[in-house]
């Protein structure tokens, strides 16, 4: 039931973004917002609180995305939040991204890094992943300070961990 609902919302958002003609940018903005929502419990609690009027929750979304995302992205997020499905937004966005990359015959590579990757680095990483795995991917960057340094790439169930955090954890394990 939840999966079908998430799928329906993802189809709707994907169709709107495609109709607006800026699918890749909307995907990326939605992805960034979903990541921010997943890492901010207060924001998630506010947007999922039924006691808060839908208009107020929409206003919060518009204030957050004003000037940082396209009008399409802001409208889509506002719509989902007003419908009371903010808790499902990360799953909906993931489904939208998967549909977008699939429409381009690519897979999603979620990259966690302490800092954002440059356009060059993204393209080089996509090429390196293609070279390594044979898959055509699109990199989606998640800023995660806990990584400390380096990159963690997730492609489906595969994880390529080259982070400083992993090395520190290995060092910690070796000390036991």
């Amino acid at each position, binding site marked *: 039931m939840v999966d079908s609902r998430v799928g329906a919302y993802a189809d709707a958002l994907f169709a709107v973004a495609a109709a607006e003609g800026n699918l890749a940018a909307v995907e990326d903005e939605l992805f960034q917002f979903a990541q921010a929502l997943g890492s901010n419990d207060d924001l998630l609690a506010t947007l999922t609180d039924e006691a808060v009027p839908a208009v107020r929750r929409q206003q919060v979304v518009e204030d957050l995305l004003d000037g940082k995302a396209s009008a399409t992205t802001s409208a889509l997020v506002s719509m989902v939040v007003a419908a009371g499905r903010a808790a499902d937004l990360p799953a909906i966005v993931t489904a939208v991204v998967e549909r977008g990359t699939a429409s381009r015959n690519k897979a999603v590579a979620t990259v966690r890094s302490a800092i954002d990757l440059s356009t060059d680095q993204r393209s080089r990483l996509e090429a390196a992943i293609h070279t390594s795995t044979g898959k055509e991917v699109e990199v989606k960057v998640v800023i995660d300070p806990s990584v*400390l340094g380096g990159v963690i790439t997730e492609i489906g169930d595969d994880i390529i961990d080259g982070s400083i955090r992993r090395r520190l954890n290995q060092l910690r394990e070796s000390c036991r």
Partner: protein
Amino acid sequence: MSQRRNRLAAAPLIAVLGLVALAGPAGASGESVGGCMAEHLNEAIEENHGDYEHTLHDEGVQSDLEKCFDAPNPILPETNEVIWGALSFGLLFFFMAKKGFPAVKGAMDARAERIASDLDAAEQAKIEARAVEADYQARLGDAKGEASRLIDEARGAADQLKVDLSARAEADIADMRERAAADIESARQQAIADLRAEVAGIALGAAERVVQSSLDAEVQGRLIDAYIDEVAGSNG
């Protein structure tokens, strides 16, 4: 029984009544001197037709009066007493032989028989008492033997229990000592591991802070480039 006792009591009573009834007057064979003299004087006065003086001086009368002073034989009773006594004795003897003696003999026999029976009963009781005593002694002996056996068994069981408890206590002590040693060793290992983890945590925390302070944008960029090169260099 009471009839025989009544007969025994009646026999002497009948004898006494016979003696009293058949006994003659006391003076029949030995009357008093005064009476004797008065009797002789009366007879002499009647013979002399009332002449007192002549009668008193008559030598024959005086001789008869002097005879009144003669004492009767102290040993030989008067003839009438002998007759009366013999008759009384014979009558008494007859009654005693006919009634008293059989009654007394019957009573004596009954008493002897009863005494003999009592003696037999006493002997029987004595035999039974001895049998009971022998049985009692035997039972006492058995009880003493049983008690001795039970005491020996109890003592043996107590000794065995003592040995078992001692062995169990020693085993428990050894087990407790072993567990205590294991606990001590485990605690020591845990303390070492905790200390090592603590030291590692401190060292890694320090290292993390050093790394964070040294990871500026340029270093981060180089790390990402190195990662990309590493992914590109790996093959599957």
